[in-house]
């Protein structure tokens, strides 16, 4: 498992849900001490193999993107505690990430 340098948040439109999620992911990464990671947001149409080291997406689009990169699903885009738990679990399970 390679080190995570980039995270991309995806939603079909690429400018609403993905944007809110990317903002909250950035805040959570600060708390996790991973401000080295660059967070971007984009649309489904702009997703491709290796577009990021980790995809953080709404659970609704998980199946659409999981083939492009390691992906974690978020169920509540506003709840930073939930996002924190999901990301922390990922980094705990992938210590090299």
């Amino acid at each position, binding site marked *: 498992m390679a080190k995570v340098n980039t995270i991309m948040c995806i*939603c*079909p*439109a*690429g*400018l*609403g*849900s993905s*944007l*809110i999620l990317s*903002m*909250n992911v950035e805040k959570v990464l600060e708390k996790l001490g991973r401000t080295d990671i660059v967070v971007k947001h984009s*649309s*489904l149409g702009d997703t491709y193999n290796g577009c990021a080291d980790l995809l953080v997406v*709404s659970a*609704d*689009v998980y199946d*659409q993107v999981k083939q492009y990169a390691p992906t974690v699903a978020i169920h*509540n*885009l*506003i*709840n*930073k505690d939930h996002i924190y738990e999901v990301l922390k679990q990922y980094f705990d399970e992938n210590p090299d990430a």
Partner: protein
Amino acid sequence: MVGKMYIKDILKPENVEIIESVTDWKDAIIKGTRKLIEGGFITHEYTEAIIANALKFNAYFVLCPGIALLHASSNDGVNETQLSLTYVKEPFRFEGKEEDVNLLIGMAASEGNDHMEAIKQIAIILSDNENMKKALNPQTAEELYDLFTSIDIL
């Protein structure tokens, strides 16, 4: 408009409303975007694009229990960046989702990232529990408008 757009720059009081109910989730998308169509900020194609996306991907725009950010892409029929708020008293559900939804944030974002500041503000407002309670149970449209526009500029 040039420069950063904050919520108060792109939300008009007349585009904040409280309605009793919707017949189903498609009706919710139609009612949640009609103010933007009436104001000329979007075309009806934008509304149809949101419905099409919801059919294709489930209602990915449900941010959290209670709140949906209705939006599609800039080139789906956006004339001008603008927000609207529609509070539906009777909760309903989008197909494939388990959460009850009451608040519909209609969002039209034209090309570029002008709407980013407003989205940041929305995220900040909704991260506060008291605000969330008010957003999900406003007594008047004015109260809802004030909740979203009285946040300090970042």
